[in-house]
């Protein structure tokens, strides 16, 4: 059996190359924050699109993703928060000064989209979407690498036995069925593949996280620990 490569994955770019890529990549985390802040679905979609066009691309937030700026995650989060505050202030001011002589009704103000305190914090939703994005990116990069290198078997074993059960709750196939599917002769071919692929996935994830903070492995590890703490509610 050919052992899967355990070398470090090829360097990944820090930021998406095109605006469409950026829109797709960060859409989920931005939308999650805005939606969880109390906006209805349709409004949250529009605000997400507005943020991407006006701030992420319009004010070149992506261009500020560099080492000196520290974590892009926190930069993006505070930019979304400020954007919503700006939108709120703008709408509020427009209602106080309609400029058409009409009388302002209190209902107009009550309909403003204030955060819904019954829901989990928008920050939690943002972080959950952010970590999901990083994990999907790592899996996508690893799948592409495996396919390019003719390691379909290793990818299939890892995806079906580890990734999908862990992330989606899918039932894992038995060792015996994997051996039959790939014409393997020993249980250890499956288990050693899993060890190698888990390590490779960890390397891809660390690299993807590193691209959002700085280039040092220590920076990526620190960010991973912080993401874990955020998930566990140890920090806000």
């Amino acid at each position: 059996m050919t052992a899967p490569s355990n070398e470090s994955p090829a360097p990944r770019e820090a930021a998406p190359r095109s605006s469409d890529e950026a829109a797709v990549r960060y859409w989920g985390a931005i939308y999650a924050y805005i939606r969880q802040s109390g906006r209805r679905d349709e409004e949250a979609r529009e605000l997400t699109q507005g943020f991407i066009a006006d701030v992420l691309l319009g004010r070149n937030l992506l261009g500020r993703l560099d080492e000196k700026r520290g974590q892009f995650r926190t930069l993006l989060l505070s930019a979304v928060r400020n954007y919503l505050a700006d939108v709120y202030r703008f709408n509020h001011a427009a209602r106080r000064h309609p400029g058409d002589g009409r009388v302002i009704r209190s209902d107009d103000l009550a309909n403003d989209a204030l955060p819904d305190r019954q829901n989990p914090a928008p920050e939690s939703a943002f972080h959950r979407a952010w970590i999901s994005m990083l994990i999907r990116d790592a899996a996508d990069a690893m799948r592409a690498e495996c396919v390019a290198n003719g390691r379909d078997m290793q990818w299939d074993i890892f995806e079906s036995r580890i990734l999908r059960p862990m992330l989606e709750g899918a039932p894992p196939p038995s060792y015996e069925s994997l051996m039959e599917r790939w014409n393997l002769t020993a249980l250890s071919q499956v288990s050693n593949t899993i060890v190698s692929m888990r390590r490779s996935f960890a390397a891809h994830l660390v690299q993807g996280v590193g691209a959002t903070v700085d280039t040092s492995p220590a920076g990526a590890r620190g960010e991973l620990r912080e993401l874990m703490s955020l998930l566990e509610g140890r920090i806000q």
Partner: protein
Amino acid sequence: MTNPVDPTTRPEPFQDGSLRDTLAWVLHSLDQPAVASGDWIAYEVDAKRGTAVALLTDPTTPLARLRRARILWAALRSEGERAEDRSMGSRLAIAAAAAAYLFHGERISNHDDSALLTALRSAVADDAVPAEVRLMMQMAERKLTGPIG
């Protein structure tokens, strides 16, 4: 301006538990790479116990699982990618034999008493092996050498 993203094509975030589990094993592999590879095999054998320590120190772990774990750890010893994996595979394969002997009174390896004792003592002295597993191996060693007099 970029084209609007169709939100229906965007996947939903994963559940918190899934994300925590994934980050946990990735961090584990960064902190303790050799122990992590041993634990991943333990998880393959017994997902509920999930780690080498839990599998090897629980007296109720079924003998069949210890046998299977020993085979897979022995394969890690011979085919592991890294020296530290191979070393940990060797230690944990012996530990599985020790647990089978200690908790079930069964011999699941081809070692004779002398070879098993030598391997156990070597593994007990290895700080890379989790302390709980080394303690279990010491108990197996005492059982193997028997009461004196």
